[in-house]
């Protein structure tokens, strides 16, 4: 298993490419086939991932709430989410008569597709990346903000007042918090000097940014976690669905499979923001290295890079989950106050510090 994980994924990709290029003469066809393979393997990866995240969320919630959580469906309740999913898929999918049917049905797809798109530049392990584009960080922050359109569409087309209110809240929220997320990402870009994900990971070879970058990067990291929690509409920033106020917010009218897609998107988003946080601040798949302690670094290298990546990602996921099960929800004006009066000014000043630090070379 460890051997399998440590072999270079790029050789597999190269192998597939050579084989495809050999069998098909048409270069276009090869590209399309490769894209299809990438997409399908991503899906095959995402569905179990979401099952696991759903299961993890319920168990984390249960243990924090001094109870057991799902334990009767499958071994230790691990098939609970599978049952939920099958049930949701087979449930009657209602489209309200008064709704805008086209937008109503399109909205969940947009939400899911945008959240999946953000997976593209993430480096899951050493040399394992779907698309290492040169503007990785910019791509992530721009594509992820498209999701709000899906939510607005869902809320608007539902022809339900709770949905509309939820969508409007979500719009204000995501647009505001995008700024903080962007600024905290910028601080790493400044330090690295590159937008490319692989460069950012490689720059942390001798230590992760969170350690190398002193307090400013730590502040960026905290702001990133808070703001990205808000951006993916998770509690305590789940105003768009605020169950106690708006029953279910923008997805009040959604049922069955379309609702399952929102759930899927929620978990993919959770994974994506944690993965980006792990990549930028905690070194992605890069093992824990300390300066020039060669022996220690070598021991760390034996742990497969994918385990490093997932370990870090799930640590952030756990923190975000703990937020959800600990804090009360903010009110809509407090949400904006937090962003515009606290997070944004702090992150702006922080970017200044980071820049000074980068110019002076004060980081390790």
């Amino acid at each position, binding site marked *: 298993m460890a051997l399998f994980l440590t072999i270079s994924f790029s050789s597999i990709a190269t192998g597939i490419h050579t084989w495809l290029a050999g069998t098909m003469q048409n270069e276009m066809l090869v590209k399309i086939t490769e894209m299809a393979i990438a997409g399908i393997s991503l899906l095959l990866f995402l569905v179990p991932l979401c099952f696991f995240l759903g299961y993890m969320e319920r168990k984390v919630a249960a*243990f*924090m709430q*001094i*109870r*057991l959580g799902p*334990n009767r469906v499958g071994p230790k309740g691990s098939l609970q989410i599978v049952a939920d999913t099958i049930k949701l898929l087979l449930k009657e999918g209602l489209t309200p008569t008064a709704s805008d049917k086209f937008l109503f049905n399109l909205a969940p797809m947009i939400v899911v597709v945008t959240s999946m798109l953000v997976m593209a530049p993430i480096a899951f392990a050493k040399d394992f990346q779907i698309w290492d584009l040169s503007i990785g960080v910019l791509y992530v922050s721009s594509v992820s903000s498209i999701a709000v359109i899906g939510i607005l569409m869902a809320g608007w087309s539902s022809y339900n007042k709770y949905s509309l209110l939820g969508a409007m809240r979500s719009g204000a929220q995501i647009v505001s918090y995008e700024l903080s997320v962007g600024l905290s990402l910028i601080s790493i870009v400044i330090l690295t000097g590159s937008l490319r994900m692989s460069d950012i990971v490689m720059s942390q070879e001798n230590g992760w940014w969170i350690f190398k970058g002193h307090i400013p990067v730590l502040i960026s990291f905290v702001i990133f976690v808070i703001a990205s929690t808000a951006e993916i509409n998770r509690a305590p920033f789940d105003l768009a669905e605020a169950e106690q106020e708006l029953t279910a917010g923008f997805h009040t009218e959604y049922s069955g499979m379309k609702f399952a897609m929102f759930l899927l998107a929620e978990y993919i988003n959770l994974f994506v923001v944690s993965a980006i946080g792990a990549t930028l601040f905690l070194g992605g798949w890069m093992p824990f290295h300390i300066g020039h302690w060669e022996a220690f670094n070598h021991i760390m290298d034996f742990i497969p890079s994918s385990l490093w990546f997932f370990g870090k990602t799930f640590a952030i996921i756990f923190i975000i989950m*703990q937020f959800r099960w*600990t*804090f009360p929800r903010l009110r809509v004006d407090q949400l904006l106050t937090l962003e515009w009066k606290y997070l944004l000014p702090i992150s702006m000043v922080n970017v200044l510090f980071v820049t000074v630090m980068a110019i002076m070379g004060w980081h390790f």
Partner: protein
Amino acid sequence: MFLKDYFVTIYKSVGSLLKGMKVTGYYFTHPKEIQTQEYPDNRATLQMFDRFKGEVVMPHDENNEHRCTGCQACEIACPNGTIKIITKQELQPDGKKKKAIDTFVYHLELCTMCNMCVTACPSDAIKMAQTFEHSVYDKRQLKKVLNAPGSKLMEGVE
């Protein structure tokens, strides 16, 4: 001054949030605190308190005899008509006729477990049982006849 307040606010807020996370974190890391009793699996050991009011029953002894004289005190005491007693005239050996119960109808679907019938009963014929698993698919199954078929009044109960 303004800046100081600003940072004090942030410091205090973060502190209070961390305190909350400490509580949830404590329970997450201490599985001993888990309170859950696994209901269907603990049925063997699950013991209701002896005063628990689950449903009204009429105890019968081994000779299929009960203590209900058919006085209808419980029927009168019941606030919402849960109990209906149908009486009959029974011929005594000495030729006299005596009132006895024919059917003791108990509507579990109406019963509020208020215990008024049990306190009203002069001959301790009925009591509260500790059962609670009464779920049914059909409401009609909840209408119960408490006296067993062929049962008769215990000797010496007036």
